[in-house]
């Protein structure tokens, strides 16, 4: 029976040794990421039958088992994927947040400086240094728009780069997972034992993959796993890695998007399918926030330029030039220049697709000033069997019509701030992306003619009024309000109105006159009288067929006597006239944007507040998600993590087991020696 005793002792020694080794492995890997602690699982050897029953034959290590729970691991993966997405989104939007609101780098100070200088010109219209200062601050303002626009454009660039980088890393993970699938299959098939450390490596790779993109797995019977992303697109199938690819978006060539490899080509993956992980965060940020902020900033720049230019056109410069000047005239009606809306034809459009372009609508006057109707959304124009459809991408509102002209008609009553034109009819399947203001902030500049000669700033008004010096009544004439298209309204100056028995006569023949906005009265002859009401607004309208409608309005109040005259003359030599500069200065506080609901500053404040709110919201969600992640990790670590104190205890346990087995062996040996002594004796 001696061999039995020895055998049992040796089995104990052997098991204790394996236990010690496993413990050492755990201690050594205490800080290895993704490592799950392992345990040597002992089982007793089956006994042999003796007369006294089954006699135990010692122990054996059945397997080395890793302490791992698939559900806990998946919980960590899910939490990790969300946390990474929020982290990456929040890191990006924080840049915008800081950029826009910076007290010195944001738009507000530049806007304020510019309008301060406009007021200075209004106060001192003939003072050249004031005019020069207005040009300089205008350049400062455009430089600020450009700099903000450029930084946003750089974010697009860097997102393109990061998408590429992420896809490369995802593909590398996919290949490693496929490789591990292969090795695990071989290892487990040949031994029938779990390949613990390989499994840990693979689980760790899946966890890392989830930091980049949300990935789900399913196991196969051979121990390999399949990995899916999006709504079930395969990334890894068994030992085969399929991977993702980057491709240029068909609708917007400046955008890199994620694609799936299919056959020989790459198929664009809808951005909404890419969620979770840093890549999901980037793509969502670009779609939800960056696009909006860029368009909003551009809208601000375009609205400023368009309204300012529209008001500028109603002025007169220091040289006495205005729209009334006979050609050739050096009058510069535009202060700023901006690029027209960008229209991108889809790369996959049918060959017969026409060229489509868009143009901003000239600002509409209200209360003497101007506003635009531009929004912050992009639009898609597409052709189908019944005609064309314009879709606003922010809310999918649609305008459908037979052709582009019909769409323009619809937009006239539901203004979006731009009109469309096409070189032909759109075939079914043709699609165009319209970005009205996306890149506009980067493209705004100051009219170089004004930079070269600040005297060209139209600070004065083009027409002045006076009451006749021989008047005997108390009638007074107002300075007059200049409206768009005024050259047609006032016709050939001077106009010399004569009061006669309750009527004003001598209006230019062919013009139309409206009192307080009432029906227009056509002036057929100079003797045609217009009833006089003290204080009523007399609106001169151009001839009936003038487009756009033109106007010049004035008021005469008091009691004129018969024969009293009132003159409208060209405002020549008016170097001290700052009326138009005052009107330009008023644009700062008037509601010039979003269909006269917001001023430049208010619209900008809204933009800052929106991105601030979004950043705040993301910070809060991100913190909550981080807490979830910590909890999930704690649950997993509670099961799989190495506790060194526990391992220390295990060391002692296995050491003692080893010592005990050795003692049993010693006793067995001494028993044998006793028998030998008897035999020798």
């Amino acid at each position, binding site marked *: 029976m001696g061999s039995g005793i020895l055998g049992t002792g040796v089995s104990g020694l052997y098991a204790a040794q394996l236990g010690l080794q496993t413990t050492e492995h755990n201690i050594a890997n205490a800080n290895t990421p993704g490592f799950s602690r392992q345990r040597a699982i002992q089982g007793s050897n089956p006994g042999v039958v003796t007369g006294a029953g089954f006699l135990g034959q010692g122990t054996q290590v059945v397997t080395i088992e890793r302490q791992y729970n698939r559900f806990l691991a998946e919980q960590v993966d899910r939490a990790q994927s969300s946390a990474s997405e929020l982290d990456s989104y929040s890191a990006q939007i924080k840049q915008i947040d800081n950029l826009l609101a910076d007290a010195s780098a944001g738009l507000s100070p530049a806007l304020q400086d510019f309008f301060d200088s406009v007021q200075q010109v*209004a*106060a001192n219209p003939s003072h050249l240094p004031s005019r020069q200062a207005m040009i300089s601050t205008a350049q400062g303002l455009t430089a600020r728009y450009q700099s903000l626009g450029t930084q946003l454009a750089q974010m697009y660039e860097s997102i393109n780069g990061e998408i590429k980088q992420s896809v490369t890393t995802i593909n590398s993970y996919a290949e490693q997972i496929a490789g591990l699938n292969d090795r695990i299959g071989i290892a487990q098939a040949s031994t029938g034992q779990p390949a613990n450390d390989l499994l840990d490596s693979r689980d760790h790779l899946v966890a890392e993959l989830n930091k980049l993109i949300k990935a789900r797995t399913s196991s196969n019977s051979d121990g390999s796993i399949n990995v899916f992303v999006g709504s079930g697109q395969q990334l890894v199938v068994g030992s085969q890695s399929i991977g993702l690819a980057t491709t240029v978006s068909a609708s917007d060539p400046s955008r890199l998007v994620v694609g799936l490899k299919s056959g020989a080509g790459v198929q664009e993956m809808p951005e909404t399918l890419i969620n979770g992980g840093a890549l999901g965060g980037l793509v969502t940020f670009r779609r939800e926030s960056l696009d909006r902020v860029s368009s909003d900033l551009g809208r601000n720049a375009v609205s400023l330029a368009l309204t300012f230019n529209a008001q500028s056109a109603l002025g007169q410069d220091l040289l006495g030039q205005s729209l009334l000047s006979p050609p050739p005239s050096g009058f510069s009606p535009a202060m700023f220049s901006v690029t027209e809306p960008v229209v991108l034809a889809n790369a996959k459009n049918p060959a017969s697709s026409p060229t489509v372009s868009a143009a901003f609508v000239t600002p509409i006057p209200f209360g003497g000033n101007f506003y635009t109707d531009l929004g912050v959304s992009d639009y898609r124009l597409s052709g189908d069997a019944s005609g064309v459809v314009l879709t606003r991408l922010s809310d999918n509102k649609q305008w459908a019509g037979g052709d582009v002209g019909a769409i323009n008609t619809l937009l006239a009553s539901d203004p979006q701030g731009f009109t469309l034109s096409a070189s032909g009819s759109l075939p079914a399947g043709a699609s165009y992306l319209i970005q009205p203001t996306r890149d506009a902030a980067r493209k705004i500049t100051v009219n170089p003619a004004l930079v070269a000669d600040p005297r060209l700033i139209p600070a004065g008004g083009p027409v002045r009024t006076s009451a006749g010096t021989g008047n005997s009544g108390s009638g007074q004439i107002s300075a007059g309000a200049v409206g768009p298209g005024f050259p047609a309204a006032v016709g050939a100056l001077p106009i010399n109105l004569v009061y006669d028995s309750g009527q004003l006569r001598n209006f230019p023949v062919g013009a139309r006159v409206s009192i307080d906005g009432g029906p227009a009265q056509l002036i057929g002859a100079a003797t045609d009288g217009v009833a006089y009401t003290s204080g009523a607004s007399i609106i001169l309208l151009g001839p009936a067929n003038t487009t756009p409608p033109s106007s010049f309005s004035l008021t005469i109040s008091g009691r004129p006597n018969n024969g009293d005259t009132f003159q409208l003359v060209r405002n020549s030599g008016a170097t*001290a006239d700052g009326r138009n500069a005052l009107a330009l200065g008023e644009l700062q506080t008037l509601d010039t944007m979003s269909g006269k609901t917001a001023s430049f500053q208010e619209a900008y*404040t809204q933009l800052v507040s929106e991105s601030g709110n979004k950043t*705040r919201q993301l910070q809060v969600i991100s913190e909550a998600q981080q807490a979830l992640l910590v909890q999930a990790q704690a649950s997993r670590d509670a099961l799989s993590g190495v506790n*060194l104190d526990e391992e*220390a205890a295990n060391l002692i346990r296995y050491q003692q087991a080893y010592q005990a087995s050795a003692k049993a062996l010693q006793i067995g040996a001494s028993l044998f020696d006793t028998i030998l002594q008897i035999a020798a004796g």
Partner: protein
Amino acid sequence: MRISTSQLYSSGTAGIERKQDQLLKLQNQLSTGRRLLTPADDPVAAARTLGLTQAKEIEGQYARNQADATDRLRLVDSQLTALTDLLQSVRSRVVQAGNTVLSDSDRQAIASELAARFDEMLGIANSRSAEGEYLFSGYQGASQPFARSAALPPATTGLVGYSGDDGERLLQVGASRQLATNVTGSELFMDIRAGNGSFATAASGNGGLANQGTGLIEAGSVLDREKWVTALDGGFPWQGSSNRELQIRFSSVAGVSSYQLFDVSTPPPPAATVSPLAVSPVLPFTPGQAIPLITTSQPPAPPVSTDFGAQVVINGSPAAGDSFAVTPSVNKSVFQTMQEMIDLLRTPLSSSVARMAYSGQLQAHLGNVDQALVNVAEVQASVGTRLQTLENLSNNSAAFDIQYQQSLSDLVDLDYVKAISDFTREQVTLEAAQKSFATISGLSLFKYI
């Protein structure tokens, strides 16, 4: 619950990092003095801050414009005061010149003094601001507004004309408030109603000669403005639209001095002139009596009566055939009045008839000088009102500024007491976290085996 060693370390360090993050933020707040470091800290407050900052800056700009406007109006005001003084001295000279015992040479001396005053007034009219812009030229800041035109014979001096315009130099002094910072030359010097402001009276001769009697017409007055305006605005049927003038003609009816009103207006040229039309019955005259300007159409026209709501007084005894004119006021520049006075004073008086005419004309001129004084006073009152408005606005602006500053401070500025107390608290908890971490990480079973 089972704890893994790495959990112990990671949660320990995570805790410490969180505290450090808090401390860094507090430190940033303390060093900048701002509660809001990025808009995300408080998006609503950040948006309000931007709005308030703009409002404050705009108010600041208005305040600068107010100061600017005040400076300009004060300059105008000082010129107006100088002009008033000047006109006062002119007036006293004219009163002096009315003394009929003065010899021709005495009047010459007064004329010379008035000529000097005239040049002085031209200087005021052409005064410039510190920036070199003419004060009284409307929009035409760069061109001299008042200059003599070439003399038309037989006159030896040309008239002073106005080459500026009626432009108001406006400044934005409040959110919806634009204020003119100038007075135009036309308003101040040119558009002065002659006579009493509504109509002018004058002796208008006796059959090609000057009036032969001793009648002197006073400036007259409008008693009922509404009637006056209505009568002029189509109420009285003038027989022509040019030279609207009523004439009071004297005659002797049975030895009684009587007067009659005539409409002497004519159609505009080239139409032929028409003869004067009697518009009242012949009425007896008592020297010094008020003559009401009430007309009644004479036969054969149906009797229609028009009341001008005005009266004139004629003193002395007009001779039969003498006539006096009443014309609606037209504008007469103060320069023209001055020039006419100077010319009048330089004319020698040879007869009693000439003296009578001289007195009448001088009286009319005195009236015109008074009108000019009233006009300057009105303009000065308007400038004073504007200065008053500016002062009120300026007080408002100052109050607004303090209010905005207060609101901004509430939104943005750091409550130091709270921040320092927070900082100390975070410091204590960080130290506790560090100490406890050191203690826990030092606990290891390996120490004992």
